[in-house]
């Protein structure tokens, strides 16, 4: 497949501060690509460089094989949906969507046709003459997306557009965005700090930290096989334990706990175990399972996300364990002792 975007060793410095540190990647045409990272990790700067609002200090940026150096935002086949949407408050829905087409000096009937097609696509038929200030959050979102997509860009950039929506609507918009992207086939580059948004919608996700990509992979691989301890801690929930020693397959935690994890060829300093990787009361015939004695400190009920806050009996290390909501787990009480098992492969170790 063709690469719609290629980034080669791009660095951006603001004074002494390096916002983006020699990042290289390419994005396949027609995909949903996300950049996931905490605030200040450089993801917005990276996006603004693609849009053309910031100039890279070093490196090269190619869109459909063409170098973008010296090309201003208004001439790039890239459009952006801003975090605050940046709808034009003095124009109605139709005029907002038509704004870009009018800049291309297209004949009026053509503009009309493409605007109404686009409004139909995003489900805003009948809202043409509405003031953008009178729309709901989800509708404003769709206007912003329609306003960019109507120009048929090579890439649509989205800068945390769901951030301002309430939770229910955000869940809904996630699915809507994903479906829309599949339908029209435009490449989406989506910036977010919300891992669930990135995991649900994307074909590929890049996890960014301190101006660098930690890992660029499919959502499933990010979750199953984090390449670095940062990714392990950032994507999904995880129990993080400091490791002070490793010998003969035996991990020693900072509190002196001993866990068996054979087959490591590094000198580990961190151990990650996902709450949902634990099995309660594992049967004896399972192999490659490390069994740990635990005592329940508290039961944290949160519907399907319910957890047990437990301590490892031998060392006192705190661990969160997923609590399936079934009749069996009903009988658990605070202070109870139980044995949990975890597969050796789910005990992720990293050297720092």
């Amino acid at each position, binding site marked *: 497949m063709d690469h719609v975007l290629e980034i080669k060793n791009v660095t951006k410095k603001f004074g002494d501060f390096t916002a983006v540190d020699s990042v290289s990647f390419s994005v396949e045409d027609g995909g949903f690509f996300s950049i996931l990272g905490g605030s200040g990790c450089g993801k917005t700067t990276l996006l603004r460089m693609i849009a053309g609002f910031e100039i890279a200090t070093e490196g090269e940026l190619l869109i459909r094989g063409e170098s973008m150096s010296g090309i201003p935002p208004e001439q790039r086949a890239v459009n952006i949906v801003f975090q605050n949407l940046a709808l034009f408050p003095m124009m109605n829905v139709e005029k907002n969507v038509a704004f870009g087409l009018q*800049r291309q000096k297209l004949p009026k009937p053509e503009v009309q046709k493409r605007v109404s097609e686009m409004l139909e696509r995003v489900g805003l038929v009948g809202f043409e003459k509405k003031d953008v200030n009178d729309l709901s959050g989800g509708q404003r979102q769709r206007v912003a997306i329609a306003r960019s997509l109507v120009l048929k860009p090579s890439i649509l950039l989205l800068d945390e557009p769901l951030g301002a929506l309430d939770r229910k609507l955000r869940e809904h918009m996630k699915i809507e965005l994903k479906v829309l992207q599949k339908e029209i086939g435009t490449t989406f580059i989506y910036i977010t700090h919300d891992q669930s948004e990135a995991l649900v919608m994307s074909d590929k996700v890049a996890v960014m930290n301190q101006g660098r990509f930690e890992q660029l992979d499919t959502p499933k691989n990010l979750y199953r096989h984090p390449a670095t301890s940062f990714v392990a801690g950032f994507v999904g929930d995880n129990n993080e334990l400091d490791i002070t020693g490793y010998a003969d397959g035996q991990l020693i935690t900072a509190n002196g706990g001993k866990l068996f994890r054979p087959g490591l060829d590094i000198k580990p300093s961190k151990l990650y175990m996902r709450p949902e990787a634990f099995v309660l009361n594992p049967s004896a015939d399972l192999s490659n399972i490390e069994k740990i004695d635990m005592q329940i400190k508290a039961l944290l009920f949160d519907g399907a996300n319910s957890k047990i806050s437990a301590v490892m009996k031998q060392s006192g290390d705190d661990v969160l364990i997923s609590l399936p909501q079934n009749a069996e787990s009903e009988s658990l009480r605070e202070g109870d002792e139980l044995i949990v098992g975890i597969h050796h492969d789910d005990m992720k170790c990293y050297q720092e």
Partner: protein
Amino acid sequence: MKKNKSSTFFLLMVPVLLWLVLLIVIPHLDMFFRSFRFENDEGLMVFSLNNYLSFFEDKIYWLTFVKTALYSIGVTILAFIVTFPVAFFLTKVVAKKYSSFMVLLLLIPIWIGELVTIYGWMILLSDNGVINNFLMQIGLIDSPIVMLYTNFSMTIGLLYMSMLFMIIPMMSALESLDDSLIEAASDLGASKWTIFRQIIIPYTTPGIASGGIIVFMLVIGDYVAPNILGGKSSLWFTEQIYNKFLATFNWNEGAAFGFLLLLLSSGIIWLALKLTGQKLEKVGS
């Protein structure tokens, strides 16, 4: 609040009512009635429209009236053209910590007072003033250009004393303009000129309108700049009113002229708001 007729409400209303009634309503009513009083041939005061008729009979009043109106509109437009780039620079380009200091500098002429700044302009503009001297020294001109006591110097004076009142409302309008709107427009393919015309101007129109009203009212009602910098030829309508009151002591006719000026300025502002599609409530806030 309107339904709450408690004693606190009335207590709070008292200063407002006193101000409105004593300082605005009563003086204006007094002027209004005075403008219809006319001394007839027998020396008796009678009700008459003569004070207003004399305005329409004498051509000089008419001409002054029209000139005052046109120049006031012109100065208002000039004030916008001159101050817009400054306001834009101070809100969107320069860092916040410097901009507040720069605004403070801009306000210095107001602290000094109009009369003193006007005398300052006289020093600059007179035949042997700073500007003429400089131009002659570098050999650009042989004899001084007459700038003082002309419509040019009057316009400069009016502009200088009023334009700050345009900057402040325009800056607050520009400050509330989110930078991402400008970026979004440019991302959608708009040129700098289109962004200015289609985004910035429509967004800041309420600020421009409220600044425009203040500037226009200050200019049309100003006396000092036309009188000192405009000299004998200035023909500003406030000077005619001044003459009625203090040169000919015809207070009744002066009152009538004052009301005509009030009608004129209100009429022009109403028309300007209509033409730009602005509402007074929105501009006032």
